[in-house]
């Protein structure tokens, strides 16, 4: 190995420093708001909080968690993930498998594929979409959050490109042994596509957790709001609704700012705990799916 030149050493040092600084800079806004959420109301109002909490306390969190609206919203989001994600994954697998076959094996493949692809190219737009769901009577029901996005076409494409990479011989051998396609999908394709399935699962999870617009327009009653729709009403406008005495007392010790901050982090927490563990899968999955030559 050749010794590094002085210029190269300087460059590498600068590069390390720059990227470390960049990563910190990206996180500082979050750190600041996190620090505010743990600080006392007086410190937050006086603008003393920078990147470390002042007068550390959990009052904002206690208050946020004690509100029934917040618990309701958390429950709706949880239910949405629990039911919505499996629906997405199962439908994606079922659609991607036949569409990954050769035209020779599945003559209708082309027509079906275009039926799905076309929805990525063109859409009816917001109003007709809303009116369709309304006509179906799904407004204010839980299923309005699950069914309209049941087939994520982008994930279907990602997965079917992955399926194409699986050697045909495996499938042919299984067919000769009398395996059905259902079994091939379940026992061979699914285990072999772990990185792709992990990627689409992550997309589905994050997508369901982060969706707020559908909740906002498809739910009339706020108790049906998923967490992010509920949070949207807080972040954009904070109105002091009717409070009882106990709430008013608690609210004097916290304030709008610390309360918002704590709710933001309660909503971000599940994602922050999940995505780092799926990183090695989704990086591989994204590259496989999006830049297929």
């Amino acid at each position, binding site marked *: 190995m050749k010794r590094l030149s002085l210029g190269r050493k300087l460059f590498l040092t600068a590069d390390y420093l720059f990227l470390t600084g960049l990563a910190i800079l990206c996180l500082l806004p979050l750190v*600041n708001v996190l620090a505010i959420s743990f600080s006392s109301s007086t410190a937050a109002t006086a603008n003393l909080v920078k990147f470390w909490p002042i007068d550390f306390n959990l009052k904002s969190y206690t208050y946020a968690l004690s509100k029934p609206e917040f618990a309701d919203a958390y429950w709706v989001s949880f239910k949405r993930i629990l039911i919505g994600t499996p629906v997405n994954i199962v439908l994606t697998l079922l659609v991607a498998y036949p569409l990954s*076959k050769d035209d020779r094996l599945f003559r209708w493949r082309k027509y079906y594929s275009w039926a799905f692809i076309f929805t990525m190219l063109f859409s009816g737009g917001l109003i007709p979409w809303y009116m369709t769901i309304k006509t179906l009577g799904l407004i204010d029901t839980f299923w309005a959050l699950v069914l309209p996005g049941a087939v994520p076409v982008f994930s279907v494409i990602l997965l079917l490109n992955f399926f194409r990479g699986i050697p045909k011989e495996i499938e042919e051998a299984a067919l000769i042994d009398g395996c059905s396609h259902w079994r091939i999908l379940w026992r061979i394709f699914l285990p072999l596509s772990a990185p792709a399935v992990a990627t689409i699962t992550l997309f589905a999870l994050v997508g369901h957790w982060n969706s707020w617009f559908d909740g906002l327009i498809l739910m009339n009653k706020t108790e049906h709001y998923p967490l992010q729709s509920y949070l949207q009403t807080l972040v954009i406008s904070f109105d002091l609704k009717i409070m009882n005495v106990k709430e008013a007392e608690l609210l004097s010790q916290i304030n709008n700012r610390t309360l918002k901050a704590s709710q933001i982090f309660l909503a971000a927490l599940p994602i922050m705990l999940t995505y780092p563990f799926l990183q090695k899968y989704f990086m591989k999955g994204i590259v496989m799916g999006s830049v297929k030559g």
Partner: protein
Amino acid sequence: MKSSWRRELPFHIMVWPGLLAVLIFSYVPMAGIVIAFEKFIPSKGIFQSPWIGFDNFRFLFEQPDFAQIIRNTVVIAVAKIVAGLVASIGFALLLNELGKAFFKRTIQTLVYLPHFLSWIILGGILIDILSPSEGIVSWALGLIGIDAPFFLGSSSWFPFTLVVSDVWKEFGFGAIVYLAALTSIDPTHYEAAVIDGADRWRQTWHVTLPGIAPIVVLMVTLSLGNVLNAGFDQVFILLSPTVMDTGDIIDTWVYRMGLVNAQYGLATAVGLFKSVISSILIVASFVLASKFANYRVF
């Protein structure tokens, strides 16, 4: 013939549940586009409302703020595409120079974080840190003697704030494809360049950049389809009455006109206008991508 039908039957059964969902929630709304050509009255429904042809469109094009909204949308969207591309490629190149795998992975994990958070969460954070009176950004700028502008409340700064915060959210995630392209460059090219006496800069110029050029071309062409997508979530969260003149985009306009003001016909017409132009752009980008980068979607 009959046997091949039976052989393919499981495939049909597998496709249909998904197809049904798409038919109901994507194709039925497409039929609902007729509202754009009607003076839609909710109590009369789609079939009874009076047909007015292109009147909705004519009315729109006569509105002075319509051109403004289109311009805002294109300006914000294009600025985001360009800034995002430059930031992602720059980041990928700088990260690729480093040897330590652990360091690289840690940096990546950290910069991905905003990608996975919703605009509700990031919007809440931005509203707090960018507040002129109590935000940390105005404090930090004050340290170096700069009077912070009202990033979210001044119409000259608002588009800038949108673009920078969008880059913040997406540049790390956008770098994934470039990092993958960088690692797949054949190392013998570098060895050959070294033998020819190329220093690091020349290696970057003659090996690295040509190595990722195809993927850059591909990403640029595919982003063509997003020229009318200025990012509804972000703009909706951050938009306020004081920045309407530079911040209002097609999607927020459709939402207000349709779901808030109940002008269904007009809102659908604008949505259709956007859909048609977007599809033309997407198809064009696919055609260009398959021509220049040998890309196919499926």
